[in-house]
């Protein structure tokens, strides 16, 4: 069998397997619409808050009406005691509490120290940060106005107050990439690469496992398997992985309006390299599992650990060194960083050097492992 024959046979076999063609062709597009669904709204909005207003003054009602203008939160009701509201927070029915203490308005006018307290819940940290951040800005705004008004009454020069009220911020927090700070833009950019890897590994390993069970296909048929046949088979599977990656980079990110297209040429080149590494790993797994269904059983539950091991969610700096070392064996580890840098951050090829080297090392490692695993399985069968 020539390498070209092996390539063609592999692609046709993938498309002719009635059970697996769905995985090879349709699963990635389906997941590309299904998985981003929760994140389509991009930023935290509408989370319910309860106001405990023990002051019932114009000032406290002013705070409530300003909260209504904040998109992140929704004032879903009020409670007469802090205990009542805390129970709802503990049970997860609400996301936060705003407590205006008794005599707030009087104390603010007199200059007696007082505070509006905002409670979030650490049981849901993303929501907690959104609530404290957005409500905190509102309360700080009110506090600054109240303080300014009192200082003016006490005789501070009006010009100085005006100047400080109009002064620019002393600190600006500006994202360099993912400019809208979209939660979806961050999650989907990373998970899309994981989806391609997991779906394709399952499909390739299942097909190779089927070949091994049936003593068929390019790798386990009656014909001798040379280096060229293995290369052709890897290339055949890699083509399907490559197309799936291009689908995400070129269509899904654009269609769903996620950050994209930073370095298209680089991303396409890196996709080709990644596809070859994933195809090789798929053959290794298929030859190891030697079973059509095993890959599904093993890989389904591996997705969550793989995502976190890549270091895009929880930083590598905070993970134990042995886990970071183990993570280097997974194509998504250089893959997610590499594609996020190229697609979302517009990195130059020289700036993804660690990812390029990591992925190349994986390609050689898994290419070699595939060669060894296929030969070992064939010897086992003949011996």
């Amino acid at each position: 069998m020539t390498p070209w024959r092996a390539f063609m046979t592999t692609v046709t076999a993938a498309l002719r397997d009635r059970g697996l063609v769905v995985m090879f062709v349709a699963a990635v597009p389906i997941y590309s619409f299904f998985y981003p669904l929760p994140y389509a709204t991009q930023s935290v909005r509408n989370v319910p808050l309860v106001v405990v207003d023990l002051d019932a003054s114009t000032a406290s009602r002013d705070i409530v009406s300003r909260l209504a203008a904040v998109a992140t939160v929704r004032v879903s009701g009020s409670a007469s005691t802090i205990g009542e509201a805390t129970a709802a927070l503990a049970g997860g029915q609400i996301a936060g509490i705003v407590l205006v203490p008794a005599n707030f308005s009087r104390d603010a006018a007199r200059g007696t120290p007082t505070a509006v307290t905002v409670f979030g819940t650490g049981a849901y940290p993303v929501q907690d940060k959104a609530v404290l951040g957005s409500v905190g800005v509102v309360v700080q705004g009110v506090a600054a106005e109240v303080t300014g008004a009192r200082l003016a009454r006490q005789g501070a020069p009006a010009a100085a107050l005006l100047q400080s009220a109009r002064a620019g911020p002393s600190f600006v927090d500006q994202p360099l990439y993912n400019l809208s700070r979209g939660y979806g833009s961050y999650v989907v950019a990373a998970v899309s690469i994981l989806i391609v890897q997991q779906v394709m590994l399952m499909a390739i390993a299942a097909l190779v496992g089927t070949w091994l069970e049936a003593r068929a296909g390019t790798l386990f048929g009656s014909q001798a398997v040379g280096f060229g046949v293995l290369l052709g088979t890897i290339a055949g599977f890699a083509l399907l992985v490559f197309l799936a990656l291009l689908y995400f980079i070129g269509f899904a990110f654009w269609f769903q309006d996620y950050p994209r297209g930073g370095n298209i040429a680089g991303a396409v080149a890196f996709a080709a390299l990644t596809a070859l590494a994933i195809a090789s790993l798929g053959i290794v797994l298929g030859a190891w599992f030697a079973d059509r269904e095993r890959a599904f059983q093993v890989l389904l539950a591996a997705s969550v650990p793989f995502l976190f091991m890549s270091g895009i969610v929880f930083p590598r700096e905070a993970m134990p060194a042995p886990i970071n070392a183990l993570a280097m064996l997974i194509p998504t580890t250089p893959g997610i960083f590499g594609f996020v840098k190229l697609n979302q951050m517009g990195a130059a090829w020289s700036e993804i050097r660690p990812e390029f080297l990591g992925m190349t090392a994986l390609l050689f490692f898994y290419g070699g492992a595939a060669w060894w695993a296929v030969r070992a399985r064939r010897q086992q069968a003949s011996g």
Partner: protein
Amino acid sequence: MVTPGLRGVIARELRYLGQQPWDLALLAWFPMATLVLLLWMFSAGVPTGLPIAVVDQDHSSGSRELIRRMASMRGLAVTAQPPSLEAARSAVRGGAVYGIVHIPAHWDRDHLRNAPQPVVLYDNAQFSLVAGIIGGDVRAAVNSMAVERLMASEARFGGGFAQAAMRLNGVQADLRTLFNPSLSYEAYFAGMLLPAALHLFCVIAAVSALGREFRNRTVDAWLASAGGSLPRALIGKSAPVAVVYLLLSLGIVTTFAGWRGWPPAGSLVLWMVAITVLMFVSIAIAIMLVGLTINLRRALSLTGFYVATGLAFSGFSYPRAAMGEAAQWWGGLLPYTHYLPVQQGQWLGGASAGAWAHGMVPLLAFVAVPLLVGLPLLSRAVCQPARWGAR
């Protein structure tokens, strides 16, 4: 009362697991290794020393003081001081640093002239969690200097620093996090991911145990070992899965509450009951998925679609209230969405028994409904040998 038929099917199942190391590994060793890995992964709790670059174009004593304060923040490590923003941006794209703090020229002088320029943090929102930590710490460092300067200038109006502080901080915004106040990412991620992983592993194990009888065309032998009764055959089939996963789930609860030292604010027993029910939900869902497909591979594919993606819809990171309607609706059809608030309520929040009971009703429905769907389909399929053996 253990009937001979039930004993027979359990014995057959255990014999199979004894002979098939792969199946035993998927049932027990692989999940255990994953749980340990996930727990270990977040053991640092809070990320510290995240690398940032500082571009100091002011070179004043004030800017050096700011750099010192940033370097002393727990979450930050000032690892580079490139001469220009362009060089710093390349360091971000290359992955050497997560953000750039830019201190503009004449920053200190303009501040004294009462025409302040801002310090700008350019962070990388593609790394959302890291950007949040860096943003908070840099802001705190900048604010600590700004407040000191403000206090010093206010103190000129008399009364010393104490009076100045009183005047400036008459009204404060007091921002507090209740429950897990240190925002330990270990408690957050491990607490949510471990039960989710266990739920997924349990579905996979039960689907595999049940689905392989159809794949291997051994339904007859399986039913025969149970004395011909499908309910008994299913109970016997699920028993090893149930035992392993109940032990593992109680294991993670005791790991959290005991070994890791995060005692439940609510009731340990109610939490354990909830996670036990989640494991029974997993088995019921497996029965439904195999019933719907009578095909091990397809049942596993559906597990991927229905269970493995469940975490994203559950609101564990991105709040459900913020999702679109379709995502909220789909999330409502997933058991983990209903389990999570029950766990967080009993473990971290200290929710009442009433709130727990309220949360358990939908969870129990996830035992009943999949069984009502799956059992009739299975009882039909076991009588149709032509459908067995589908791959």
